[in-house]
């Protein structure tokens, strides 16, 4: 999952980037509203975390500009002022949720997961695609009721495919969303990971939960 962090306070920004990366997110960041608006328009991001008091261009203006440009990714607002008037204004401008500073990182992570799940069309925290069941809160995966142990990267790959169950996801999209920018795009590492994920979910090759579409990418069966 690729997240854009707009925060001008360097200590908080660096700490957020570090924690989000270790939670498995690919992170883009900007310290001011102008650069941030550009990043949101140009990069294929899945979710944005926006501080309202940004230099250059206020957070609310950035959000309005994104929405006007047709950007539909969910947006989480960070604000130091917990006045309802401001929260309502932010939500009406196109934000999807808010978090008041100071906050626990776990809270931020939970809110981001919920936003991503919702934008994938899932209203429940437990995603179900055919025989595969993924609990976004506990990060546990079961297949036909059997618990499946996954590495952090395998989990992220599966989560991404499941959030977009029924849709075709290209290899380059997976590379963009699951790796930092300096990743070698020509490598076949995604194929390797998809292969490992298939073996773990479906050791007998009976269920075939992940379909390969030649030259186009992968598709998780929704039912």
């Amino acid at each position, binding site marked *: 999952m690729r997240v854009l962090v707009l925060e001008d306070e360097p200590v908080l920004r660096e700490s957020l980037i570090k924690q989000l990366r270790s939670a498995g997110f690919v992170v883009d960041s900007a310290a001011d509203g102008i650069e941030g608006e550009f990043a949101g328009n140009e990069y294929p991001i899945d979710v944005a975390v926006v501080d309202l008091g940004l230099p250059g261009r206020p957070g609310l203006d950035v959000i309005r500009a994104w929405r006007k440009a047709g950007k539909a990714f969910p947006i989480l607002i960070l604000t130091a002022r917990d006045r309802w008037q401001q*929260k*309502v204004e932010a939500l009406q401008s196109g934000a999807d949720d*808010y978090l008041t500073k*100071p906050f626990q990182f776990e809270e931020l992570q939970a809110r981001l997961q919920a936003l991503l799940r919702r934008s994938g069309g899932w209203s429940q925290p437990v995603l179900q695609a055919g025989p595969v069941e993924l609990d976004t809160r506990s990060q546990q995966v079961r297949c036909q009721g059997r618990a499946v142990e996954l590495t952090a990267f395998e989990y992220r790959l599966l989560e991404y495919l499941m959030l977009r169950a029924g849709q075709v996801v290209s290899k380059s999209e997976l590379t963009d969303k699951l790796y930092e920018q300096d990743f070698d795009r020509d490598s076949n590492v995604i194929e390797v990971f998809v292969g490992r994920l298939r073996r773990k979910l479906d050791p007998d090759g009976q269920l075939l939960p992940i379909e390969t579409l030649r030259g186009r990418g992968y598709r998780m069966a929704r039912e």
Partner: protein
Amino acid sequence: MGSKPVTASAPSLVNRLVLGMAAASVLLTGAAAMALDALYRDLALDSRRDVLDAQVIALVATAELDPAGALAPASIAEARLSTPGSGLYAEIRNQTDEVTWRSPSTVGSGLELKARPKAGERLVERVTLPDGTRVLAFSLGVSWETGLRQPATYVLSAAESLEPYFSQVARVRSWLLAGATLLMATLVIGLSLGLRAGLRPLRRLELEILEVESGRREALGAGWPRELEGVAQNLNGLLAGEQARLARYRTTLGNLAHSLKTPIAALKSILATGHADPAAAGPQLDRMQSIVEHQLRKAVLAGAGSTVASIAVKAPLTDLTGALSKVYRDKSVACHCDLPDDLAYPIDSGDLMELAGNLLDNAYKYCRTQVGLRARADQRPEWRRSGLLLEVDDDGPGILSVDRQRVLERGVRADESVPGQGIGLAAVRELTAAYGGTIEIGESELGGAAVRVSLPGR
């Protein structure tokens, strides 16, 4: 505080008014003097003409034909006509333009009249004598029976020097000039004195405001003219409000500083042990955070000032439910709103959102699927303007009656409260208290908690 303006100040009010009035009075008195001058010259010239007319008529009355056929007055009654250089002249010419008679006063004057009126015609002319004297002449054509076949036409003329007239005009002019100047000076001086006296209260207002700025005075004094009384009262109201606000800020800052001292001391002692345990610092940091939150809430509270305008209640509450439905989208909450369109109450819209936002946030958080929001006017005989009743309920687990009072009181003193617990309701309690209202928690028909806030009318 009282910094000198950098740009040059605009002309004072007194100077502007005096300049304007002076310009107007110069124009007016100038025009009046010119009109008077023109009128006087007109009248004086008319009277000169009448005099000459009378002289010519006298000539006609006394003229007789002498045996040689020349027309001449038999006698001269006017002494000035007989005196050379007297300034009054007369002559008679016949048909062939020969002078048949000339008054003795014309000797040496070089008077040459040019007007030749026909019989019965009167002509007035001005001529200048060789010595520069300006003369007004009046000539009358007269048809005279000479005993020949036809009557002969004679021209009888009288002329008078205009020099006495010009010197009179000059004298009148100098008097007019002196009078007009005196009038203007009196007007300008009187106006500026009057204006200065009239605008003195403004100067006093300026001085008193300066004194308030520099701290030598707390409020403006009394005894203002009617026009300034309202301004002075409003300024005093503003000053009183500012002072009250300042006092509140000082108290808030003092409370903030004092209440932060304890957790800071605790943190210091934790660090002083040498092996600082992050877990031990956690509760102190939480405490500091909740203190800051509490004081921030108090600082932004607009409160029920006498100047808060009535606002329509429906729009901000509808905005809130819209926003919360977005945040709690997963729960697909059904919000039953009962908000009259015309309901209005004098409250700061931010305070109303804060009040209802915290109540609704709790309801959305704890409900299963149903939330109710009702607002209506509360009319009582002792209130001129009605109060506001706000009720929020849900179908969640509700609040046990033994806990109800505790939930409201938690967070009242932020430095004793548990963060994240009851902060919302504590904020509602503080806001309600600031507006002099009451709050009660009961059971909802939906099955969960119902919170009723009642704000008084006035």
